[in-house]
């Protein structure tokens, strides 16, 4: 299982702040996980599409498409940050 968190615009558009997901056997990096989520269609496909400015973190470090993901990880998707 991995924990997936959603923040800000994504949290609202997807209607969820977090979920527990059993990592499919063929998912070993962030790109593959994102493809699984996009495969849900609807808001998932729209919000996580490559054309959208989406950022991600794995275990609270900024992550890229090739960042490995594994059981027990905390993964987060969110828009570009706007603090400060």
């Amino acid at each position, binding site marked *: 299982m991995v924990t997936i968190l959603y923040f800000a615009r994504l949290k609202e558009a997807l209607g969820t702040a977090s979920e527990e997901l059993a990592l499919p056997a063929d998912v070993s990096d962030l790109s593959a996980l994102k493809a699984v989520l996009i495969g849900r269609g609807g808001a998932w496909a729209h919000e996580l599409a490559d054309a959208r400015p989406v950022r991600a973190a794995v275990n609270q470090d900024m992550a890229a498409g090739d960042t490995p993901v594994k059981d027990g990880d905390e993964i987060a998707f*969110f828009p570009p*940050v706007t603090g*400060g």
Partner: protein
Amino acid sequence: MTVRIQTEDFDLGAEIAALRKGNPAIGAVASFVGVVRDVNEGDSVSGMTLEHYPGMTEKSIEQIIAQARGRWNVIDACVVHRVGPLQPTDQIVLVVVASAHRGDAFAACEFIMDYLKTQAPFWKKESTREGPRWVDARATDDIAAERWRLKG
């Protein structure tokens, strides 16, 4: 090093006093306070709510301060960032850097702010006349952070 995320307001003078602790090696204290404006992107803003990613926010700011310490002579640094509902003229963020000399303090303080703007997981949702809207990230913030890559 102090990093705090809080809903309450903060007091710059008190934070600086805590940072300095009477250390006579400190010769320069540079600080920055970010404040909610009543206008953004040409629209009037009546308030905003700041959301963050608990845990990662603190960790990312600590990493930014560590990077600043690696580049400049920093005696101590403090970042306080508010979350939750805020109004125009409310304080949002505070960065304080204490150094022996002013060049280090100024550079590290501005570097921390520029990196915080692009790296620390906070998101602003503004209230405007047309309703609430998530603030878009600014290309100018990426440029501001990027220029530190080119410099010394």
